[in-house]
């Protein structure tokens, strides 16, 4: 059995068949995971300095030079690296006096912090499978982003107290701005809200839970929300799965969600699991939290400092060297910010060629976790999953690359 690192479900029931040392058939991988497996053969990165191919050792020493000479280096990425690599990354940041940040900074960070600090009740996906009866997919679309979420854990499987099948045992509700592929199958109600309408929907739902008439213009919607209120009250074990839709709508006002989570736990028992995308974003947040008391956006220049000025979108204005690992930052950020990134001397570590590696001064190819390198990671619900490499390759793991840079700095 192999572990898929295609998303933060870390599916551990992947079966493979081999022919001549190559994977000839995969079982139980979704389309997204299959893409990751196929990527073994596509567009692999080569070690290079200023566009010219070099040996691995040369790439390492140039990377160490570039980072070591900098006043304000920024180390970014991390959500596609193992826990072991993340730990070395944090040590490297300490040694360099660098700023360190990860993809959660412009992704699930604000919500993940609440969960990791224990401010929002959470549970494991196995508990969801065994006990959950009311599921709220809020601004999340597992069908597209965590494709096996509903079949492995949340909606369709039988569980200890959910023996009769999804149509009898579970209630699935979707709150979204569009009719996503998840909305299509969440059988018990689709609540279409306007972009940015989440805070208002929270208010309406709070009213409905308190037996008041929600302040909603549309009469049909008003009735629907009232009915939802009573459905939510009847839950034995409810779970909210917030996605980027909800998080980008609230951003640093994530506290607006707090009264609802509190209220839901007064009327019944509700948990919350952030719908993380990258396979080990939660791992990085957890590790950095243990190490520094903060989940992201940390500077080691002068002890441990934390703040929005260390968010990658801000730090880009001050840093004079950048290391990006396992993330195509240039593709992911607004072009106006990427323009600034493009001018910073960059070391890019990635299994594949992408926009960020193309703009980097130094590129270092890495092994794909779960396929070519082993390690461990935290699933979106915090459960630790260990994985072994399933095929032999000459590519070095993030752990090896980071250790080498660490030695050379």
């Amino acid at each position: 059995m192999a572990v898929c690192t295609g998303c933060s479900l870390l599916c551990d029931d992947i079966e493979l068949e081999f022919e001549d040392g190559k994977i000839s058939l995969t079982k139980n991988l979704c389309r997204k995971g299959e893409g990751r497996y196929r990527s073994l053969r596509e567009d692999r990165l080569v070690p290079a300095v200023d566009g010219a191919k070099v040996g691995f050792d040369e790439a390492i020493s140039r990377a160490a030079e570039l980072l070591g000479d900098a006043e304000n280096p920024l180390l970014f990425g991390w959500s596609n690296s193992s826990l072991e690599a993340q730990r070395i990354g944090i040590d490297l940041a300490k040694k360099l006096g660098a700023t360190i940040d990860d993809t959660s900074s412009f992704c699930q960070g604000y919500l993940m912090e609440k969960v990791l600090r224990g401010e929002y009740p959470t549970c494991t996906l196995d508990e969801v499978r065994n006990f959950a009866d009311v599921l709220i997919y809020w601004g999340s679309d597992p069908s597209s982003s965590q494709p096996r979420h509903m079949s492995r854990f949340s909606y369709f499987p039988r569980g200890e107290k959910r023996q009769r099948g999804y149509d009898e045992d579970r209630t699935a509700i979707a709150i979204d701005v569009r009719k996503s592929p998840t909305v299509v199958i969440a059988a018990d109600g689709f609540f279409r809200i306007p972009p940015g309408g989440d805070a208002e929907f929270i208010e309406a739902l709070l009213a409905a839970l308190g037996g008041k008439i929600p302040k909603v213009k549309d009469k049909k919607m008003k009735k629907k929300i009232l009915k939802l209120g009573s459905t939510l009250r009847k839950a034995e074990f409810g779970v909210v799965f917030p996605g980027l839709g909800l998080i980008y709508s609230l951003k640093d006002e994530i506290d607006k969600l707090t009264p609802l989570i509190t209220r839901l736990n007064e009327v019944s028992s509700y948990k919350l699991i952030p719908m993380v995308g990258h396979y080990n974003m939660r791992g990085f947040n957890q590790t950095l939290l243990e190490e520094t008391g903060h989940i992201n956006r940390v500077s080691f220049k002068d002890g441990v400092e934390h703040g929005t000025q260390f968010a990658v979108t801000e730090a880009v204005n001050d840093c004079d060297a950048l290391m990006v690992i396992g993330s195509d930052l240039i593709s992911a950020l607004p072009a106006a910010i990427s323009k600034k990134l493009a001018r910073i001397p960059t070391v890019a570590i990635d299994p594949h060629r992408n926009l960020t590696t193309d703009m980097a001064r130094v590129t270092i190819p890495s092994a794909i976790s779960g396929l070519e390198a082993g390690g461990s990671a935290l699933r979106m619900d915090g459960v630790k999953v260990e994985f072994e490499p399933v095929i032999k390759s000459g590519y070095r793991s993030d752990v090896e690359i980071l250790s080498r840079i660490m030695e050379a700095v």
Partner: protein
Amino acid sequence: MANVMEVYQLLPKTNCKECGYPTCMAFAVALLGKEKIIEDCPPLIENPKYEKKLEKLRELLAPLMSADATETGMIIHTDKCYGCGNCVVACPVNVANDPKGTALGFGPKSGRAILMVEDGVIKCVNVEECRRFGPEKILCSACIVTCPSRAIEFV
């Protein structure tokens, strides 16, 4: 899924009997029952004035005529499939046959599952176990309604 009237509307409607059936309506039924193929209607093939109808009819019947359709009429549009496994886990036959695997959300463990995911897309095996198989068939739709992309249909 095509119905008889849709098929009939695309035939010449002359009841010429060249296909061996007394009426175009009967031929439409035979087409849907896979007893005849479009080419068994010579006027439709040969007369250029039916060109548009012929094209539409081929389009309409393409899923039915495709080699992908199993004996139950199940067609899996692998190009649309997400490989999410919702159908695998929701299928009542899988649940009964594979209680420790697919019933719990895993890949099949017993070798008796009828739906499974291979190479990132869904695949149907042991089709005789499907509830829609044979004369006593039940019109189960567990695999259809749980699909996020309508990748499964029965014709």
